């Protein structure tokens, strides 16, 4: 394999994986606290819309990012209000948020911009530029082009994996967060509010989904389009499960899924020796298939947080 091809494969894998990583970390925060989050897709979608709309209108990256996170946090809180405060069904609430986001982004987009649900393209000055545009020339295709020519969100996502790992495994807050996902009664008995912890986790979840959605508009495409997340939220959920609710293995799963996506696009119509042509759809379906196999216990062990999905009833 030549160097240029390797460089583009690495670069493309990282680009595809970044929103998955951010979203999987968001899911990790919520699910480690015991709240099932099927709403990743919807939160990412509404954040992408908010980033696209605010970015196009205001012409400011900061405002676009802020609106993306704000919109996503709002949905997280609705989820919290329904499921943490009122002990509603977490799966149903997550599905509701996904459907609301799918509809609302188009309704508002059509009404505000009259372009069939698209937002106007975001100005290049607002979009996130590569941190070091000359990296390929200075350091070559693999190190420069593959690893060092990305925008800030790509590196932020990787830093956040380390940050979330540190938060969850090395801080007092993280210990409580894990405990509240495994045995909320114990946490409450220790005098820590289950509700407060879960709301904090959901707020962090909103910020992370917001970044994931903003990435789609500020780094990948130039504008928001209807249903532009196209199942990435579910794939991030699959990566979280595949990574067994742990930050570093989840990162691995996101990179694997990103790589599969990259390869699927490149192998279109290519005949491999001995195997022949591999259908693109088979490679694209692989993340879902692998997750099913993992959940069924055929690869590894299914280790979901113990109290995941169970509403917590406070004792008096």
């Amino acid at each position, binding site marked *: 394999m030549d160097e240029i091809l390797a460089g583009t494969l690495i670069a493309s894998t990282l680009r595809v994986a970044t929103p998955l990583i951010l979203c999987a970390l968001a899911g990790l925060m919520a699910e480690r606290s015991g709240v099932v989050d*099927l709403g990743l897709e919807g939160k990412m979608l509404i954040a992408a819309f908010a980033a696209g709309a605010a970015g196009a209108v205001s012409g400011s990256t900061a405002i676009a990012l802020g609106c993306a996170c704000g919109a996503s946090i709002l949905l997280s809180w*609705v989820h919290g*209000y*329904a*499921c943490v405060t*009122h002990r*509603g*069904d*977490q*799966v*149903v*609430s997550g*599905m*509701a*948020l*996904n*459907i*609301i*986001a*799918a*509809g*609302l982004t*188009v*309704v*508002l987009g*059509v*009404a*505000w911009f*009259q372009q069939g*649900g698209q937002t106007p393209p975001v100005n290049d000055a607002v979009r996130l530029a590569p941190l070091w545009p000359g990296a390929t020339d200075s350091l070559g295709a693999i190190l420069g082009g593959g690893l060092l020519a990305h925008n800030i969100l790509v590196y932020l996502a990787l830093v956040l994996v380390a940050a979330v790992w540190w938060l969850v495994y090395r801080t007092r807050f993280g210990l409580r967060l894990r405990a509240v996902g495994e045995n909320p009664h114990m946490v409450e008995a220790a005098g820590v509010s289950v509700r407060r912890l879960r709301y904090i986790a959901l707020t962090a979840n909103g910020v992370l989904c917001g970044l994931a959605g903003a990435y789609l508009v500020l780094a990948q495409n130039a504008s928001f389009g*209807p249903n532009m997340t196209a*199942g990435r939220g*579910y794939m991030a*959920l*699959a990566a979280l*499960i595949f990574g067994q609710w742990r930050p570093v293995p989840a990162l691995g799963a996101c990179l694997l899924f990103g790589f599969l996506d990259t390869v699927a696009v490149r192998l279109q119509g290519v005949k491999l020796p001995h195997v022949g042509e591999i*259908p693109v*759809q*088979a490679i*694209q*379906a692989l993340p*879902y*298939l692998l*997750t*099913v196999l993992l*959940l*069924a*216990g055929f690869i590894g062990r*299914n280790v*979901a947080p113990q109290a995941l999905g169970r509403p917590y009833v406070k004792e008096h």
Partner: protein
Amino acid sequence: MSAAPALPRWADVAALPLVNLGMALLVAGIVVALIGQNPLHVLTLLVQGAFGSARGVSYTLYYATTFIFAGLAVAVAGHGGLFNIGAEGQATLGGLGAGLLALWLADKLPAAVMLPLMIAAAAAFGAAWAAVPAYLQAYRGSHIVITTIMFNFLAYSLLVYLLVNVLKAPGGMAVESAEFAPSAHLPTMAEAFKPLGIEWPSSPLNVSFFLALAAAALVYVYLWRTRAGYRLRTVGSNVGAAEYAGIKPAHQMMIAMAISGALAGMIGVNEVAGVSRRLLLDFVGGAGFTGIAVAIMGRNHPVGILLASLLFGALFQGGAEVTFEIPAFTRDMVVTLQGFIILFSGAMAYVLAPPLSRLIHAIPVFAKARQA
């Protein structure tokens, strides 16, 4: 919260769901007002579009047909204690089953043989696609919600693969199969009523509407009038009690999901055999998710599901008509409302129970009844 007295049964069955539906409509109305439209004007146009003409009613019933199957699918799984988010994928497989059979045999067999075979194939494919997640839940402990979501994506990938690589009509630009031979066309209502001398407006409504009504009746009889249905509901309401009574929960989960998948597969009959008469990419179009809203609103009961399907059919048909009148309005408003209904009637179903209960008990007649 313990301060609020329990709701009387009539309020729990009728008043609370109506209040929740009202909340969803209210929030949707606020969204409509936010985009600068008059909610009442939109509602009037919507009702006219859905019920104002024979053609409108016919379209409403066509949408309702798909939603009845989807709602029943979610409800039967629900009675078995399982949340089937996979109706979308099961419907895809159902359409695929009917379509493959039609492409294979329709030019050799008469309609009287072909159509029942296609219905059976749709049900069988849907059931088989649901049986895998059911098996994994019942015997390997993997969570059915996640597995059925993954199976939706797998179903879609399979359909795309087959359409692009195997079934695509030669020479055509669109990603769709060749049209089925005439014996695989399920008659539309207009065609079915013509020999009887009844003039029915031309619309996608086809005889699978009657299949949907029959399915609703069968689901009712099965769940509430047979021992098998009793076993299924027992597992759904209390796994421990069911096991103690000698009912095998794993068995019942398989049965619940197989029936659920077969019902979802019937969506393929309506859309593929009845309307498009060829295989296309997006013939399910989110109906599996609408089924969740329908089942929640219909409280998992066939009668409720028929009513909720009619409501959603009217919303989809009326919503399309509103778009013609008001260009700034899109039918995605109906999708949004569907999300609000799932949120308020499903996830937040009991949020308003305590205030409603206090309100009811503040009325002297009910307060007296409670003391007695």
